[in-house]
């Protein structure tokens, strides 16, 4: 199969870091904080590499949108097995305001430009938890989507996707080209090997601006305030079930 896969990878604050809110409440502290690839994006890259190893896919292109630093994230994808990278340069205020709508427009434009047959994304990013980019990209391209994928197989030119839904597992068959978003149990990402990390240095990362793709990255959203979650209050002990019901009614919960 001569399929080309586009994999989106996002650079986020590392999952193990303790988040601190900026003193001016406009966002979280990102300067000097350890960043790494979004864990769901790692799973997406791993799935693409497995498809390539099964010879179902010919080329994997890793894409990331952001300032210069996202090249680290693209290099990690290259070290895991992607063939080349595309860095969509977005920086400053545009980057702070970059959200799923803008990214999905960029992914859609790139999918057309690169003639991709499959887009694999993480189901959501661990910083904003939006869970929108995959779905929006599919809508913009008018492609079928297999979101929350926990299993992905190619069957007779169609994609069979087992999706994790609230009620259990749903299996769907969709035609390519399609968008798939990776859920936690899709696979366990491999470690990059030392030789692959060194080979990744030689793989190309192309630089592109959103304007070159005809995409306007202005945001329609404005962040008003960012706060820490409220401190957890101590609970109250009650003696009987009647007391419990009274307290719940008082708190307006029932």
């Amino acid at each position, binding site marked *: 199969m001569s399929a080309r896969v586009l994999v989106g990878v996002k650079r986020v604050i590392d999952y193990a870091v303790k988040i*601190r809110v900026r003193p001016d409440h406009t966002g979280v502290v990102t300067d000097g904080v350890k960043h790494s690839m979004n864990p769901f994006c790692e799973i997406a890259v791993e799935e693409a590499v497995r498809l390539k190893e099964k010879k179902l896919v010919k080329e994997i292109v890793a894409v990331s949108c952001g300032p210069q630093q996202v090249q680290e994230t693209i290099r990690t994808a290259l070290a895991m097995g992607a063939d080349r990278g595309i860095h969509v340069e977005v920086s400053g205020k545009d980057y702070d305001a970059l959200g799923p709508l803008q990214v999905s427009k960029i992914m859609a434009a790139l999918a057309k430009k690169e003639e991709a047959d499959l887009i694999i994304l993480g189901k959501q990013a661990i910083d904003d938890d939006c869970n929108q980019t995959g779905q929006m990209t599919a809508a913009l391209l008018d492609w079928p989507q297999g979101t929350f994928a926990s299993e992905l197989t190619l069957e007779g030119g169609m994609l069979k996707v087992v999706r994790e839904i609230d009620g259990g597992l749903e299996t769907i068959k969709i035609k390519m080209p399609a968008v798939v978003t990776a859920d936690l149990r899709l696979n366990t990402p491999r470690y*990059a090997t030392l030789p692959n990390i060194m080979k990744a240095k030689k793989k190309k990362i192309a630089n592109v601006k959103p304007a070159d793709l005809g995409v306007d990255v202005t945001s329609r959203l404005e962040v008003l305030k960012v706060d820490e979650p409220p401190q957890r209050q101590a609970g109250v002990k009650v003696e009987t079930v009647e007391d419990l019901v009274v307290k719940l009614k008082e708190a307006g919960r029932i």
Partner: protein
Amino acid sequence: MAATRALVRGVRLGTYSIGRSCSLIFNRVQRRGISACIDPSIGLTDEQKEFQKVAFDFAANEMAPHMAEWDQKEMFPVEAMRKAAQLGFGGIYVNPDVGGSGLSRLDTSIIFEALSTGCVSTTAYISIHNMCAWMIDTFGNEEQREKYCPDLCSMQKFASYCLTEPGSGSDAASLITSAKLQGDHYVLNGSKAFISGGGDTDVYVVMCRTGGKGPKGISCLVVEKGTPGLSFGKKEKKVGWNSQPTRAVIFEDCAVPVTNRLGAEGEGFSIAMKGLNGGRINIASCSLGAAHASVLLARDHMCVRKQFGETLSNSQFLQFKLAEMATKLVASRLLVRQAALALQEGRPDAVSLCSMAKLFVTDECFSICNQALQIHGGYGYLKDYAVQQYVRDIRVHQILEGTNEVMRMIIARSLLTES
């Protein structure tokens, strides 16, 4: 806040205003090294950060969960090490044409430092294995390299390094294991002591006497397990380094083909000394990893443990103690990395710097781990807590690869021969 970070519900208010108490609700002990001023990735190239990340992830996922079990059950973790070898950790500074990763000494130091946070004992063995593979790669001829290096780099076979004897430790050049030439074989007689991996490993790099007294009479032979006349002593019971077996290696009329000799006759001691320079950086790097993990453990404990109505992190004495530990850690790290650079660039001060690094770092890091144990109070003494294993495991780093006393000899000699 993000769904996958549900475990971290509180936000530590004002990390730098130590007057207020830390409102940590739940904290997973992260040995991935994320703490601004002691972050081990500071100053590294992007590629080195990638190497370090793989090593840290491997250590956290494949080694740390088993570190206590490997220690208590004295298990040689063959499977875990082979997984590490698949990532390229079997021959980190061995030539790629025989299966190695071809990285620099500094890259190697960074990798062992990160791996060590997962298990010092196993990482130290991996570093010894790497040194043996490098010796064969560097001083062996084509046949020897082709024969041994690929299997060593993939850890299909494991290696041990045999220099020390019951009668010659620091005075290594006085070794007496003899290798008498008989036709196309050397016949070995003697024994080696304290050999890491001895009995469980397949390839033994042995320093033995082919000529007269002193260093010039020593040659280096590769002996394979199963060779008639090669046997092993009992497995030693040790305070630490329990994930690697330590045994005496005994030669009784053990015939080894002349083609197994690395380099020329009489070059053995020089090979040994060159190997030890790198070995010293590696052992120091292992100490660094343990110290780093211990500082994080101590800090986390201080933020949780309360006495006299407040967390330990409010005690100025302990804050100062932690600061001193962190400062010594960073100073140690800088010295090791500088020594690694000097070695890979072939600088004239490389030998002295490697000795200084080994001396300073193993001593300081043991002190750091020891203080971390103290900060844990009674809990630090329990085997349920990792800090005691770091202390026990790195204690021996002040002894092997040349005792810290021998390091002082080397440095003093370097200073005094100038005047």
